[in-house]
């Protein structure tokens, strides 16, 4: 009897916690949309999304330059981080000797623990002057921001994809080696393809961190709400736009910042859907289950 009550309570408790996270998300969505939609309605939805000027002092609220900025920074960062971190993950999961892995793992995890303001300040003091001397301009640029972001998302992608590579059953590897494949052929043709769903999850998590990162980007990206002509031009990300102006905004400007949040929300949703599609498409089914 006692066991039954305990079972019942735990079951309901878990249900309540699970439901509350859904409810919290729903409340946040409702709040953002109810705060942000008025500006979109009064300014015009298409004009808001595709407008090219953001100038609150003269009543212009076009977020397209920021969409381009956010996607540009994130895309560049992924371009740098994905090959680097996948090679690192393969090295740690398959090649590195145990002692080396014991050192590497905590070092990489430390990278994840450094607060973003520290990365931002490092970028401002060290990276921006280097970029200015090397490439001209002010040093505040899309490239500077994506380099900082690359370092910030490396640990996420490395540790999640390393776990994915490690969770491949030992038999796969043994079977491949048994038919005469070399270690590298086994990694390339068996282990890596089998781990792809996990690796995609790792990249999604990294992308999420990159697109949501605010403070470090504010400090090094230059925050100019304009289309960049090259990767050496300053850009403003959607998140930076909200964080920079929220303290001062009133009225329609305030609402337009929530509108920016809606746009950010929609972009993340689209990216998640795309990523999930590939995640399921690549899943290898074996018997009744999948990897």
């Amino acid at each position, binding site marked *: 009897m006692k066991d039954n009550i305990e079972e019942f309570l735990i079951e309901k408790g878990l249900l309540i916690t699970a439901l509350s996270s859904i409810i919290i998300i729903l409340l946040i969505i409702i709040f953002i949309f109810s705060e942000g939609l008025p500006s979109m309605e009064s300014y015009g939805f298409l004009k808001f999304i595709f407008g090219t000027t953001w100038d609150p*002092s003269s009543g212009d609220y076009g977020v397209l330059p920021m969409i381009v900025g956010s996607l540009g920074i994130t895309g560049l960062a992924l371009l740098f981080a994905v090959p680097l971190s996948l090679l690192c993950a393969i090295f740690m999961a398959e090649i590195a000797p145990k002692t080396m892995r014991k050192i590497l793992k905590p070092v990489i995890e430390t990278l994840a623990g450094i607060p973003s303001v520290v990365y931002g300040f490092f970028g401002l*003091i060290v990276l921006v002057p280097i970029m200015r001397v090397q490439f001209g301009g002010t040093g*505040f640029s899309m490239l500077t921001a994506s380099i900082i972001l690359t370092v910030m998302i490396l640990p996420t992608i490395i540790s999640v994809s390393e776990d994915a590579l490690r969770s491949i059953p030992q038999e796969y590897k043994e079977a491949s080696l048994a038919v005469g494949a070399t270690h590298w052929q086994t990694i390339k043709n068996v282990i890596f393809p089998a781990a792809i769903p996990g690796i995609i999850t790792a990249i999604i998590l990294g992308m999420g961190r990159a697109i949501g990162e605010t403070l470090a980007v504010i400090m090094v990206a230059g925050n100019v709400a304009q289309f960049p002509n090259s990767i050496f031009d300053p850009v403003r990300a959607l998140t930076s736009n909200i964080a920079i*102006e929220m303290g001062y905004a009133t009225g329609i400007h305030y609402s337009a910042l929530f509108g920016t949040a809606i746009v950010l929300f929609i972009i993340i949703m689209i990216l998640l859907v795309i990523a999930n599609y590939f995640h399921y498409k690549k899943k290898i089914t074996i018997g009744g289950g999948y990897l």
Partner: protein
Amino acid sequence: MDSKYVLLIIAVIIIISAYLVFNPGNQYERLQIAGSTSVQPVIEKLAEKYQETHPNVRINVQGGGSGLGIRTVEQGIVNMGMSSKALNPDEKDGLNEYVIGRDGIIIAVNNENSISNLTSEQIRNLFSGEVTNWNQIGGSDEEVHVVVRESGSGTLQSFQDIIMGSTKIRKDAIVQSSTESVKQAVKQDPGAIGFISLVNMDNSVKAITVNGITPSEQSVANGSYLLQRPFELLIKGEPTGISKDFLDYVMSPEGQAIIQNQKVVPANQLKQ
């Protein structure tokens, strides 16, 4: 010891300390202040000194920007707002402004820059993008990089009103979200120009004399330095009780001396 008991003891300690933190008896009177990050350090200092002589008062000072200060005091969320600019007519709305002092805005360039004086027109041309190289106004051959604050900042607003007028700041100006990061950006770039508060000035950047007048507390006080703005406390309606008492303290000779120590020109020294 059994781990269950350890957990229990930790839980009890946490609950008791949380209780002490959040409910330190009800004998305290509270004063909530929020707003401009430029005014914040001055008010924090004043609050600290005030609480030394008034142990039954707790003053909570929070940043967030002039706009936030104006909005929250209007909505009655805080007792007092801080603003680093005079209010526009549409922002007034039942708010009383109390000027506690004046702060200068410094036009800052890199220490390597050979230029040391600019007229307000030259500053306007630099910030509007009409002048794109320092050699156009007698400096070395170096591209001009303009660094400004974000839209809505009290410092930017004052700069726009005093120098730019209806002229727009160039669209590709780098935006930094605090006075400190503007200073960092100017400090490391030989071509950069930006504006920072006099309170934050040190020798890591060079202060430009404007129309021949050196920015200093004296030139702000006698009104000869052009770029200056008020530091204000905002109260909805007439000040009463603890708000009035704190405001009186800020305006008292003792309070004004503290303001002066923070490199802000106190209200009682301003030329009326």
